[in-house]
């Protein structure tokens, strides 16, 4: 069952790397079009696993994932790219042995107007243009993150899944990345975000889901939750909702 | 009638000798998950060393130290262990197929070495001049063969029993633990690399024992006894019977040896004269088909072990043997 206006729906998802040992237990969420939903929670909550399951990288044993009403549960990751969904992993999100240019050309492989798009991306991210013929491993942490986001944007996606985009960045760079994400929604992109940087994430998000121990705990509008003490309690291991 | 019985004794002796080697491979592959691609080298080391140490002096031939039989056999077994140590130390810490390559390489190198180092190994002519233990005392050849068969069966029973105890012992549990989840085992203070090395050496020594007995039986060894086909035969035996499973290993040994000698006999009878040269080739294809076929159709072997699917972080589920 999908909610109206939801571009991405996850419905009681059960998923994990090993059959019989699920990490996610009946997790549900909706991503409304042109909005940012953020997933937060303590370590080991299964946030990354959730994003990876949507991306097709973690096996799903029960439940459904829908994109604009269409079932994409267990889809092959390369097919998802073709459906307008991009995924930015938390780490190892660029190809170190390829140059910046080659990284982007790889993603633009199938696109007819690849050359034009490449120019657009370089206009959007000038530091990448400067280093375009250098191997990606020579980039700084912030530049690598920029490249990873550029790669995600290259295919002009409708939905972007981001796993801790601010990880490893300075507070200033982190807020820049998150502000950039906010800006993307104004251009029609919907973003599902996992973040550890709770304060900054809630500042730019529309909706928030809190996950712990592989289950939904609390959800609500981001600005409402940012002043709610329950957030802190869940993080510190006190309150749990919906445990078996 | 004596002819048939005589042949049966001969058949069973060889099958039992090879079964000992299969048990050694079982310790490597079935229990420890190690891939030994060069069984022929450890077999050959045991065979050659036994003859060199225990043989009588022969003109123009190295060796003939005339040690007592138990010592000669022990020397052969020890030499196999030493070779295993050398190969294991280099490869066991690395990705699993490095051991496959290295052991395959050691077998090729070993064959090349014994075929060319004439002064030490007799080259292509091989080594002879070995007095089989108690042969003179027993006198009658048929009786001797029977006694030797009993001896081999006793060794086989001892190895079977020994391995059975090993699997049920704490060491066996350690092997299984390392197979299942190496990181967990390491965090408990166990040293997986050292345990695997010990297992590799032990299994290779068992294979060396098999080689020593083989050389004893024929009182002769040559480079043609250490060809790659031997490695394939032993594997086929293990794959058919069921890895990780002693009963399966024994079944596989006797079944494959029967199939090998049987097919050889049939091909020799039925193949036209021009094709007689190719009977060996056809047998090779059969063994290859058996190996590939079993892996595709029934990789757990004819006598499957009782399986316990357990988890290891992120990797494919591995199997652990409950029975022996």
């Amino acid at each position: 069952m999908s909610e109206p206006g939801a571009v991405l729906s996850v419905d009681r998802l059960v998923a994990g790397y090993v059959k019989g040992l699920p990490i996610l237990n009946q997790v549900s969420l909706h991503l409304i079009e042109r909005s940012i939903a953020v997933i937060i929670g303590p370590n080991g909550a299964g946030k990354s696993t959730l994003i990876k399951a949507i991306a097709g990288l973690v096996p799903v044993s029960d439940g459904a994932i829908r994109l604009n009403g269409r079932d994409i549960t267990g889809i092959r990751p390369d097919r998802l790219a073709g459906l307008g969904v991009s995924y930015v992993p938390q780490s190892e999100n660029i190809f170190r042995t390829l140059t910046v240019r080659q990284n982007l050309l790889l993603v633009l492989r199938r696109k007819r107007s690849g050359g034009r798009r490449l120019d657009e991306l370089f206009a959007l991210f000038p530091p990448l243009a400067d280093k375009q013929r250098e191997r990606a491993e020579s980039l700084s942490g912030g530049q690598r993150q920029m490249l990873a986001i550029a790669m995600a944007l290259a295919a002009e996606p409708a939905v972007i899944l981001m796993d801790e985009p601010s990880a490893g960045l300075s507070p200033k760079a982190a807020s820049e990345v998150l502000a950039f994400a906010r800006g993307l929604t104004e251009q029609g992109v919907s973003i599902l975000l996992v973040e550890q940087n709770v304060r900054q994430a809630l500042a730019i998000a529309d909706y928030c889901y809190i996950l712990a121990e592989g289950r939904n705990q609390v959800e609500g509008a981001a600005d409402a939750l940012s002043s709610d003490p329950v957030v802190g309690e869940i993080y510190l291991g006190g309150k749990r909702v919906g445990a078996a | 009638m004596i002819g048939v019985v005589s042949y049966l004794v001969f058949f069973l002796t060889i099958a039992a000798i090879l079964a000992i080697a299969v048990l050694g491979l079982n310790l490597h592959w079935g229990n420890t998950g190690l891939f030994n691609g060069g069984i022929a080298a450890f077999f050959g080391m045991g065979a050659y060393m036994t003859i060199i140490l225990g043989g009588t002096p022969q003109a123009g031939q190295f060796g003939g130290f005339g040690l007592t039989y138990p010592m000669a056999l022990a020397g052969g077994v020890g030499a196999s262990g030493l070779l295993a140590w050398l190969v294991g130390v280099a490869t066991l810490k690395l990705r699993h197929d490095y051991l496959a390559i290295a052991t395959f390489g050691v077998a090729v190198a070993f064959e090349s070495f014994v075929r060319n180092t004439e002064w030490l190994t007799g080259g292509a002519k091989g080594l002879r001049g070995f007095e089989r233990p108690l042969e003179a005392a027993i006198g009658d050849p048929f009786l001797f063969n029977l006694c030797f068969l009993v001896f081999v069966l006793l060794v086989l029973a001892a190895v079977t029993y020994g391995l059975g105890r090993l699997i049920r012992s704490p060491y066996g549990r350690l092997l299984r633990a390392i197979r299942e989840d190496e990181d967990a085992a390491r965090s408990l203070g166990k040293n997986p690399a050292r345990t695997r090395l010990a297992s590799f050496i032990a299994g290779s020594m068992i294979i060396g024992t098999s080689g020593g007995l083989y050389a004893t039986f024929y009182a002769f060894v040559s480079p043609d006894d250490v060809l790659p086909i031997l490695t394939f035969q032993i594997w086929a035996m293990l794959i058919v019977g069921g890895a990780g499973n002693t009963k399966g290993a024994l079944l596989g040994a006797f079944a494959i040896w029967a199939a090998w000698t049987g097919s050889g006999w049939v091909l020799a009878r039925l193949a036209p004269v021009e094709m007689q040269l190719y009977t060996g080739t056809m047998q090779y294809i059969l063994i290859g088909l058996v190996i590939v076929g079993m892996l595709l159709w029934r990789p757990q072997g004819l006598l499957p072990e009782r399986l316990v699917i357990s988890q290891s972080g992120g990797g494919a589920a591995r199997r652990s043997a409950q029975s022996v």
Partner: protein
Amino acid sequence: MIQALLDGVLVGSVVSLGAIGLTMIMHLLRFANFSHAELLSIGAYAALVFDGLFAAAVPAAKAAVGPLSLTWTLFLAIIAAMALTGLSAVVIDRLVFKRIRETAGPLSMVFASFGVALIIRSALSLVFGLKPRLYTDDIVFAVTISSDPQLLVKPDQVFVFGAAVAIMLALHLVLSRTTFGYALRAVAENPSLAQVAGVRLSTVIAVTWVVGGALAGAAGVFHALDNQVSPAIGHNFVLAVFAATIVGGIGSVYGAVLGGFLVGIAFGLALAIMPPGYSPAMPFLIILGVLFIRPQGVFGEQR
């Protein structure tokens, strides 16, 4: 000594071509493929068959190209043989290895690869006979390119070296300038990220088999051109190509090329120093040495 080096470089070209496919597959599928070297045998025999077919179709084309013993029919046969060998490689994967890796672990694939190697070698013996064959009955004379020290080189050898280098250059261009090459390298570095970037894994795996197989097929023909066509080619090269991949670092195409030439030169030098019977053991010593000193090889493995 220089003659030994020259001969070694020639052997090295063959080993390099054979090792490229092996290193890619070993890295991608995580298994040591003992049947890869048999693709050299398949290539050599395929060229023999195609040469015969083309010569029967267009007898005039069975004329030697310049000073080489290579005929036009054989030249075309090499290309056909490369295609056939590449096809064989991917078919074998579909029939055997793919099914095994879906149900069992990588070591079962290694097991199976031994069986496949045995089958291929024996089948070739049965079909073509155990006796070695030659592409041409013409006797080719070596050219003395230097009298002191005496250096002899056969025109065919120059062709083989040139062709091998040309093929490797072409591969380099594909890897460094085409998006498909980027896709291959991406999968080698990080298969799941490559999928996220829109690369279809099964296609890349199939292409890797085809390319690796084609290169191995070429290697087999090149070797047979200077020696003879026999079912033992695969067995003779299996350790050498493994040694090349280990020296160069599994997963690195450039490593395989470097490793191949190093192994070839070592072979050449070994033949000059040791009795020829020992040469099969030489790659093993190289392997052991590398594993003791620097197991990841020159260019290491990404993972």
